[in-house]
């Protein structure tokens, strides 16, 4: 039974991971990272059910708080760079290389 949830979680994680690698807009990249974190949450909760302890469910709450904090910091950085460059594309930020 847990397997179904794990497969779903792995799919979500993979979708998020591929999204980070192929999407260009920093906001979308960031949303894909959040999707990966939520895939982790699903795995935690499924495992908590399987093992019959509450640790996994509590961890899910911690992850939500951390994800919220990450949104605050991430959006601040992305908005600043958008105001400077008039673009949130990760391809445009290419001054630092080699």
């Amino acid at each position, binding site marked *: 039974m847990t397997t179904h949830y*794990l497969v779903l*979680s792995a799919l979500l994680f993979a979708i998020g991971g591929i999204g980070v690698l192929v999407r260009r807009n920093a906001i979308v990249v960031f949303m894909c990272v959040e999707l990966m974190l939520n895939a982790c949450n699903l795995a935690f909760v499924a*495992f908590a059910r399987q093992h019959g302890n509450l640790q996994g469910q509590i*961890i899910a709450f911690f992850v939500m708080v*951390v994800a919220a904090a990450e949104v605050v910091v*991430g959006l601040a950085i992305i908005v600043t760079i958008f105001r*400077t460059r008039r673009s949130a594309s990760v391809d445009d930020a290419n001054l*630092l290389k080699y």
Partner: protein
Amino acid sequence: MSTLAAVAVDPPKIEYAELSPMLLVFGAAIAGVLVEAFTPRYLRKSIQVPITIVSLIGAFVLTVWLGLRGTRDAAAMGSVAVDGPALFIWGAILLLAVVSVLLINDDDQFVAQAAAVPGSADEDRAISEGGAHTEIYPLVLFAVGGMLLFPAANDLLIMFVALEVMSLPLYLLCGLARRRRLLSQEAAMKYFLLGAFSSAFFLYGTALLYGFAGSVDLAAIAKSLGSVAGQDSLLFMGAATLAVGVLFKIGAAPFQAWKPDVYQGAPTPITALMASGTLIAAFGALLRVFWVALGNLDTEWIPVLWAVAILTMVVGAVLAITQTDIKRMLAYSSIAHTGFLLTAVVATGNAGQNAGALSGILFYLLAYGFATVGAFAVVTMVRDAGGEAGHLSRWAGLGKRSPVLAGIFTLFLLAFAGIPLTSGFFGKYAVFSAAVAGGATALVIVGVVTSAMAAFFYVRVIVLMFFSDPAPEGPTIAMPSMGTAAVVTLSAAATVVLGVFPQPVLDLAHSAAQSLFVR
């Protein structure tokens, strides 16, 4: 579920005294946030700087007290390990943080108003009003608090939270350089997106290991490794994704791409903090993951880390040769040093061998931390019209303009190269000899060859400084403020003392490593 309510809940036992260094740093960070909220702008810096420095020194004193008291135990219901290596790492991080704060305090390295668009009238107004963001001090304290918790975390949840507490302030701090703001903001965005990506991997690894062991406690995971029953795919995938997360944080190849960009773009004092503190903290966490949680799986992860170590050393040393920017070159050199340190991580064996490798790593981290903070402090002093003179060609003939500064920078470069009579020599010796004793001789040969390659680009800078003619419109040497002068002096003194008279610190590292990690 209803049965749960009936059971009396035991309140968790928390050893506040053992956690006091961390609590002091976090408390001071929160006090700093309150200062930002309630005091007028002109007073803030004169309140924030003493709070920051006093709390960091206080935390260092508390760490020494814990060390003398002989505390070796897992505090807070076993989730934070206050053991020998953790105390040594805390002491090192706190010392280097104090030194970095002196550099951060120093001058106008930070943006006057981060929200103002570069080149706009808003920015000009903010600059003419003077001052800079004083929020950097609480942010630094939060980052240092995270750095203290990260290597002491004894379960994977605490480790993940500490990772984020350490990283989130650093993402912001990277974007706050006063000059070359586009580079700085770009560095912040790259660091943030890649860091968030890698911490998602860390978390997924945690989830899989939780599924495998039924607990995120490092000791519980180690125990259930003994009884792998049909769940080993969970274990292997979990260990691999977890490894991606921690290897990213130490900047090991193939996860090193962020390091040069971030080190170059970030304000130099923040680079100094990251290059010393974050590296030490991340190595502590890496050791705990691989030696404590996955200790019984070493036949599986040692070959992987062998490959990672070789790749890291080669990538760091080869790409550093081609660099033309001084900060970028130091970043690649940091990658190479990460590889040298990894040679001792794979040199596991019996308890005595582990203690030897661990004490080597601890000494190396401290020695490298001081040299790197000092080197970045020198970088802040060599200025052009547009800020720091980053391009290496601008450093030509520096030895003729300012022999003292160039001489001190040479000292740091020689320490990086591992020349005798500098701290780097004993660091490299301790790490490589532990690796040979642990049977990683081939790895050490690669390490020695790449050290020689690394020595080439260090010496190239020295030759450039002393044997080239200075450019006619060369950079100016900023008159060092008290803070910067103190940082350079302290780092140079530490580099020489650890190189000439290393025995006390080697003994300290040895005794810290004797008890190994608490389980």
